[in-house]
């Protein structure tokens, strides 16, 4: 028989305001196994923990039930406290009477009743708890960063500088990500390329960093400290060792420089040939052949690039290659894109070439962009004189077309665009239609005010109802001026849309492979919104950049550094404690049906033939074996097993049914 101590926490008024804590103590005192029950203002505080330790010693407690907040919050704290007093940490159960009781109920009597029931269930479970021992697993001292934008680059550099090996997997032919497409950056207006390309070069030359560009993560198995990752290196069709990056193949091909395929990097404002580097400063400076659009791959005829190449680097026979690498930690830095605007017919984006997105404007203003940095209308190549910017296109929309969140960077980049245009072409008039101007950040509001006060950019509070392209090539923007209570019909010759940001569409697939959770908007979820913002709830998975939520470059770089520190903290350990709550197979009950192996998300179950003695009957049976190093204790096998052979240590079938019985009593 266990000797159980029950400790009920007030959590200030968080619990005590809705749950009659004293009454809970009185009612659980006579539960089977309970020899001690008490309450305290803050059980997690030093004084509270002292109380627990004293009671363990005084009453010889063998099991503890703490009625407090969620185990996600303080289970670790109370387990450590029990261990200090010489008790096995797995003899502690937490009854969550805060998140699952006091916070969600208003009626004190009902809430108290529920708290007692939750406590009773935990007590029933502790009666069946057995001491469990944590195992140890080694740590592979190598990290993987998925995504080679500024977030991935910074994370990789920081990890590599700390002395650990890092691999970057980037699906595009070059690293650099979105930032490499930008012209200038707010709020200092320094050129994006000038601050990014040195980092790209550093990544390429760093002895601790390996780049896998034009590559994708194909399969992930294993667990924290010991991931096995299959990386598909797509056939580049250009030999890395031979190519010198001279660029001859791109300029002297059948179509010359022009090409006939819309350039992804220039957002379709310019064409590229089938053999290409996305941009001049690409890292690595080795082109790829886009096989879907290459004449040679489509028809078997052409082969011009192979003939031109002075170093004979073009290799049409190259095949995709899959490499398997072991990692201790994985960082997801898959970045973002803007939403598709097909559903927003009112902005005439698909109808009129002079209605463009902000990221297209970045390319149009970039000296290396499709127009060499000359701002011009895509329809007639004339310089626009009257430009309208529309904010919140698809952001803050609680409908099926847009996104419910604020994209965070649009207010600032629009102020930046407006000022850059006014700087280069002072006779351009600029109007910005906004719902709110949001500029929280160091020197951000001053930056936006500069656009208004110094550059006289006309900010009008009110959304745009319709963008109407006119037969004469001009555009009429029908909008509201809410502060003056008027409807405006503004004639202009270019419209720029601040389209909402969304996580890179590929992130869903990656998150599934990593078993990392994502929210309704496909942003990766952090382990704790405030206290563990760069970690995924899945151990060993870390988050960096826009993949976690909208953020600007300074914030991305800070988060990238934070993720790197967390990775280094993990890789610095030689051994990790493993969770002892793993599945176990009762070989006498197992009939080898494979159901458990089919549901196991971690590939932890294998089968082997064993000799069993079933009530005197000796025979060889095929039974399940759990690799405890791989098992994460999710319990999928225990609920799937048709013969009840699978059991989870610490959450045995008997413990759970006893809990249910206690609740229903």
């Amino acid at each position, binding site marked *: 028989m266990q000797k159980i101590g029950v400790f009920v926490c007030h959590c200030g008024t968080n619990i005590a305001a809705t749950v009659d804590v004293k009454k809970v103590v009185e009612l659980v005192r006579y539960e089977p196994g309970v020899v001690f029950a008490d309450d305290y203002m803050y059980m997690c505080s030093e004084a509270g923990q002292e109380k627990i330790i004293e009671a363990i010693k005084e009453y010889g407690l063998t099991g503890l039930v703490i009625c407090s907040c969620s185990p996600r919050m303080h289970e670790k704290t109370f387990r450590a406290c029990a261990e200090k007093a010489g008790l096995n940490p797995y003899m502690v159960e937490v009854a969550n009477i805060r998140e699952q009781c006091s916070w969600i109920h208003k009626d004190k009597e009902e809430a108290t009743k529920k708290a007692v029931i939750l406590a009773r269930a935990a007590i029933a479970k502790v009666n069946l708890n057995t001491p469990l021992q944590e195992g140890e697993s080694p740590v592979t001292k190598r990290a993987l960063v998925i995504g080679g934008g500024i977030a991935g680059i910074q994370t990789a550099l920081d990890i590599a500088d700390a002395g650990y090996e890092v691999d970057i997997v980037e699906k595009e032919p070059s690293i650099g990500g979105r930032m490499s497409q930008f012209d200038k950056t707010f709020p200092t207006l320094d050129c994006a390329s000038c601050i990014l390309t040195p980092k790209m070069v550093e990544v390429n030359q760093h002895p601790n960093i390996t780049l896998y560009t034009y590559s994708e993560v194909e399969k992930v198995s294993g667990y924290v400290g010991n991931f096995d990752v299959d990386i598909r290196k797509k056939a580049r069709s250009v030999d890395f060792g031979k190519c010198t990056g001279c660029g001859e193949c791109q300029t002297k091909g059948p179509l010359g420089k022009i090409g006939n395929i819309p350039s992804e990097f220039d957002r379709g404002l310019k064409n590229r040939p089938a053999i290409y580097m996305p941009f001049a400063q690409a890292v690595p400076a080795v082109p790829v052949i886009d096989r879907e659009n290459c004449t040679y791959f489509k028809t078997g005829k052409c082969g011009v690039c192979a003939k031109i190449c002075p170093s004979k680097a073009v290799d049409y026979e190259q095949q995709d290659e899959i490499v398997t690498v072991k990692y201790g930690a994985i960082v997801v830095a898959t970045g973002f894109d803007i939403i598709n605007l097909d559903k927003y017919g009112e902005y005439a984006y698909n109808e009129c070439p002079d209605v463009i997105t902000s990221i297209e404007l970045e390319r149009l203003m970039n000296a290396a962009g499709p127009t060499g940095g000359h701002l011009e209308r895509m329809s007639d190549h004339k310089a626009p004189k009257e430009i309208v910017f529309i904010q919140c296109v698809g952001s803050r929309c609680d409908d099926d077309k847009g996104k419910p969140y604020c994209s965070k960077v649009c207010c600032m980049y629009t102020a930046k665009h407006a000022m850059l245009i006014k700087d280069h072409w002072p006779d351009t008039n600029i109007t910005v239609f906004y719902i709110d101007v949001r500029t929280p950040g160091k020197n951000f509001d001053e930056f936006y*005010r500069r656009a*208004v*006060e110094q550059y*006289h950019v*006309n900010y009008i*509070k009110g959304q745009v109802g319709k963008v109407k392209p006119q037969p004469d090539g001009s555009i009429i923007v029908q909008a509201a001026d809410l*502060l*003056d209570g008027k409807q405006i019909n503004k004639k202009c010759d270019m419209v720029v849309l601040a389209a909402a940001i969304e996580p890179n569409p590929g992130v869903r697939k990656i998150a599934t492979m990593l078993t990392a959770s994502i929210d309704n908007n496909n942003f990766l979820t952090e382990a704790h919104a405030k206290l563990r913002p760069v970690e995924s709830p899945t151990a060993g998975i870390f988050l960096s950049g826009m993949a976690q939520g909208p953020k600007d470059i300074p914030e991305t770089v800070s988060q990238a550094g934070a993720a790197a520190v967390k990775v280094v903290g993990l890789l610095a350990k030689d051994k990790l404690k493993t969770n002892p709550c793993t599945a176990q197979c009762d070989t006498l009950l197992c009939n080898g049906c494979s159901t458990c192996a089919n549901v196991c998300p971690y590939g932890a179950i294998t089968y082997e033939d064993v000799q069993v003695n079933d009530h005197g009957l000796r025979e060889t049976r095929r039974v399940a074996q759990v690799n405890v190093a791989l098992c994460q204790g999710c319990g999928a096998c225990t609920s799937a097993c048709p013969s009840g052979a699978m059991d989870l240590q610490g959450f045995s079938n008997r413990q759970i049914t006893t809990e249910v019985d206690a609740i229903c009593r």
Partner: protein
Amino acid sequence: MTELEKNIEIIKEISGSDPYKCMRCGKCTASCPAYSEMDIKPHQFASYIIRGDLEELIDSKAAWKCLSCFACIERCPRDVQPGKLVDATRQIVARQRGGDYLQPEEVPELLAEDLPQQLLVSAFRRYRR
């Protein structure tokens, strides 16, 4: 420079305030004791001037309903001082009528029953001689 631009420059010069500094927070309008009488509200003066809608300001009742209590000047967080913009608008009108200054003998007929003394004092302060 057009007549309009000249007048905007004059308003800026007379008032000594920069309408572009206005962030449309509405604190002036929130403070205005003559709010219900003003057809153009204090916060709108800055945007009318930026937009060049000077005719509307000149024709408005608002310029004459302002009590010159200076609450908006005192409280404006951006130092735009809408009251001074209103004052400058009045002065533009006075100048348009020929002669920059209000003649003392004109005052009695301009006086309305409910006109506060404070405005009168303010007017003399501005148009004295």
